[in-house]
């Protein structure tokens, strides 16, 4: 599979047909904790996982980081 595969015409309703093979599609589960509208994001985390034949595999290394709110945060 090459990067040019993105340009291939995709049949209607088959958006990920070309990638929906074992280990071709990777899911990034994304989560944020916020302090509200006037504070913004205070923590961001993400996990990468793959699903092959209905079995999930989670990447051992996850992303987890605190965020310093902006100067105008309330």
């Amino acid at each position: 599979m090459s990067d040019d595969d993105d340009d291939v015409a995709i049949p209607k309703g088959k958006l990920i047909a070309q990638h929906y093979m074992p280990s071709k599609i990777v899911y990034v589960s994304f989560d944020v904790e916020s302090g509200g509208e006037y504070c913004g994001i205070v923590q961001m985390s993400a996990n990468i996982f793959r699903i092959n034949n209905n079995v999930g595999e989670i990447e051992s290394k996850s992303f987890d980081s605190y965020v310093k709110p902006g100067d105008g945060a309330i």
Partner: protein
Amino acid sequence: MAQSRFHSQQMSMVSRNQECKNAEGIEIVWNEFVSYIDKNIGRYQRECLVAWNGESGDMKWIYKLTQAPGSKLAMPKGIKYSSSYDQEAPNGISIPFLRNSFLRHAFEFMRLCIHFSNNLSRSAPGALLIK
């Protein structure tokens, strides 16, 4: 034994407090997130961003950060699709939305096992699904 556990919890809190104090701004953290994605995804793999949708969901923050008018940050290049745990298409996100991309078991797996920051410290009810 109990005292030791209390001590370790206390040390964990102190460590977390230090992390909070040393936290960077959103621009730097977002760039770290992008490089985390780039490092862990193969060249020919395609990424699907999965998050909670809705009024106070995470997709709204992604939109604000990367897609809203005037936003300075960019979505990682490898992310080609998006999906949400509640299967509702997010407003404003320009990445193609995948609906019904997994079977019910996969959704159960994600809800039970994936995430979040305290995931490592909690027991996973769906542990049988993990290899």
